[in-house]
């Protein structure tokens, strides 16, 4: 294990490498030394952001990501690379700092990177427990598939469990595990599926059609939903569908393998998920007998064209922000939102039968 000490002159400003190697037992001490004699640099921290990955190539990517996140969310970042195929159990550590200028001051966030070799059942929880910045919220971004068994003590410490269901090979198998983890936290842990966060702008764009009382009744007359999504974004499309169904009181109705929804007044609401090349969800249309409400992603990707036509409404069209789809932007959005996401689990419950198809 490396025990290299850090000369004061070597302030390890992030270059997207893991940073300076340190002995695991001396991390806090070395971090303390790091912040001595740093002139106009200010250490700031609002959250603990731990990232767990099982891919070595993700260490550099995540370090770059942390650097971007730190510009808006000062944090103590703990990046954990689990090298589960290593023959021997062991832990290596590095420290790093990400600084950016704010009003002539340099504001810095710390990063501690761990490499966990082998399949130690307790090493992950230990490095997390030992290096959290006390009293600050703990956000854990789990970038790997969830494995069983779970360490309930670890999960009960997590305030926000972040994951991306679009990355899963087996969403039907993963969601039940996620539910189980959420239950460990004694309803404290907020599940933050980045796939759900991705839908935020699109949900807002759809919702704004119905802010006016003239348009509101149309929600009760929707007959069909069409969602166009990229090949890798079926779970996103299903979540969007689940959200609409949950909010509008539709129940999934499956007859001989054909799925549709039933509204509270027993009307049928059909849906089509259309797979097309592109990124994410490119279009969503809600149709009543007389009106059509469309949200289409503009070619550049940063805006939606929202159009309402027909029926008792004045037709109109407007441009709305679609939000950037880079993973750093999605994560920033999620961290900025805060709060719990009760609709997520409700929406998920509705479309769970469709996940395996």
């Amino acid at each position, binding site marked *: 294990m490396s025990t290299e000490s850090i000369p004061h002159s070597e302030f390890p400003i992030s270059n997207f490498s893991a940073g300076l190697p340190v002995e695991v037992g001396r991390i806090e001490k070395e971090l303390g030394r790091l912040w001595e004699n740093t002139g106009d640099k200010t250490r700031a921290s609002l959250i603990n952001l731990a990232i767990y990955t099982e891919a070595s190539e993700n260490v550099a990517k995540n370090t770059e990501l942390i650097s971007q996140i730190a510009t808006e969310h000062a944090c103590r970042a703990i990046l954990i690379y689990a090298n589960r195929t290593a023959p021997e159990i062991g832990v290596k550590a590095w420290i790093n700092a990400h600084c950016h200028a704010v009003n002539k001051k340099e*504001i810095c966030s710390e990063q501690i990177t761990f490499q966990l070799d082998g399949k130690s059942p307790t090493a992950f929880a230990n490095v997390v427990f030992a290096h959290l910045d006390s009293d600050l919220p703990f956000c854990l971004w789990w970038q790997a598939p969830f494995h069983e068994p779970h360490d309930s003590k670890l999960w009960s410490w997590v305030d926000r469990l972040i994951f991306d269901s679009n990355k899963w090979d087996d969403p039907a198998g993963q969601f039940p595990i996620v539910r189980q983890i959420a239950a460990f936290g004694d309803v404290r842990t907020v599940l933050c599926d980045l796939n759900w966060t991705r839908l935020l702008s699109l949900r807002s764009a759809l*919702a704004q059609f119905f*802010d006016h009382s003239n348009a509101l009744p149309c929600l009760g007359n929707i007959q069909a939903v069409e969602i166009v999504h990229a090949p890798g974004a079926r779970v996103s499309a299903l979540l969007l569908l689940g959200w609409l169904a949950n909010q509008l009181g539709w129940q999934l109705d499956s007859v001989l393998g054909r799925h549709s929804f039933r509204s509270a007044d027993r009307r049928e609401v059909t849906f089509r998920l259309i797979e097309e090349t592109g990124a994410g969800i490119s279009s969503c249309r809600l149709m009543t007998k007389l009106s059509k409400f469309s949200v289409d992603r503009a070619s550049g990707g940063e805006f939606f064209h929202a159009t*309402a036509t027909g029926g008792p409404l004045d037709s*109109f069209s*407007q*441009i709305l*922000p679609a939000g950037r789809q880079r993973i750093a932007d999605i994560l920033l959005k999620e961290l900025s939102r805060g709060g719990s996401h009760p609709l997520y689990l409700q929406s998920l419950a509705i479309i769970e039968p469709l996940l395996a198809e």
Partner: protein
Amino acid sequence: MLHMPSDAPNNPLREGLLSRSVPEPCTLVIFGATGDLNHRKLIPALYNLAADGNLPPSITVVGFARREKTDAQFRSELETAARKFSRQKINDELWANFAGSIFYHQSEFTNFEGFETLAKRLDELDSQRGTRGNRLFYLSVGPDQFPVILENLRKSGLNESKPGSWTRVIVEKPFGTDLPSAIELNNIVHEAFHEKDTFRIDHYLGKETAQNIMVLRFANSIFEQVWNARYVHHVQITASEPLGVEGRAGYYDKSGAMRDMVQNHLLQLLTLTAMEPPTDLTADAIRDEKVKVLRSLRKITGKDVAKYTVRAQYAAGSVNGKEVVGYLDEQNVPKDSQTETFVALEANVDNWRWAGVPFFVRVGKRLPKGATEIALHFKGVPPVLFHQTEQVIDDNVLVIRIQPDEGISLRMSAKLPGSSLRIEPVKMDFHYGTSFGKATPEAYERLLLDAMAGDATLFARRDEVEEAWKFVDAIKEAWDSGQGGPVVKYDSGTWGPDEADALVKRHGANWRRL
């Protein structure tokens, strides 16, 4: 402040997306659209709201002003301004879309026909753009123009809401120049608009830290317990600026610091600091509590003004390394002007919570630096233990910084490391900019959005304005009758006259070093 969702029928798709009221499609008519406020603040704010997806669909902006110009010319001028003053970089596609919603209507404010044609044009825009008859009139003009505009709005029927629609008016400060004029102005406004549809802007209330005062007080159990006369020795509210009158002498010399700043911004901050917890977060519940504070303010009348207030005027001096002239030598300022550019006063809130706690208010031009803050100075610890070692122990101070560098700090005492017992003040400091890297929205963004949503929490109610004038008028009357003595001088670039220091020293306090 926090906001509950609107009482309008619920849009189920909005659940979980927003924690504030949702604005409806509307037309915003800006009177004085070629003026500075529109270019620097309103249009950039509207663009930023559009860029963040917060504007209601079909929002339409109609500029109303005297000068002759086309829609295209108006849009072009506004684009130049938005590129200069917007907090977000202008996106060409988004601007093009937003600019398509902007129109220009040329007319004199006194020309009734101009309002008739405006009414027709608004009807046309309603049907073209789907704004559904909702109208928000923004009086971005001097108060002398209010009566004629409001009168013409009324005569042309533009003040009336159509069935299922709303009509509101936003009024910029100053809301009158004294109580009678404020009452008159409010009566004129009310001839055209109901109080519930009247939104009096005080942009200080749109600032994040001002909104955070209630969160700090009522969402943290440790502060509210000590937020009273038992623990607080005194409160200091300061708004300082290094600028002089900067070409506004015509307005400023009639107004002075008391009317320009104390009557509105500083008394608003005082009410937020001193108010009781509201019953809920609705606009009227909060404003009810603020009004109670204003009613509890002990009036400063007659000879008391000499004891409780200081008024002063800047003399020549040095600010930021530059030699500057005194107030009387500023362009367009009468040589015998008695207008105050500095006010310090001791206010007393005569209620159960604050009995005996002075609220020191200080505002001035040509001071060493620009800063607005509220500081609660807590009572000292009993004079035992550490006092016996000839230590000077500074009292705890909780500071809420409104601008610049918005944040909160707490001063407390700590032992210096070492074998001897030395106690020094240390500061725990929270900076919005450091902790939340994202730029906070401009005050006007929040306020415009709230007005479109019909949420009046951050706007001054009629009784607030009038109660504030009662307090200020009493002082002004005493000053004008000579009971406060002459206006004293202070050198530009200093923190005001010695008399201001004496005001707080009487209570064993000192003004904070900012």
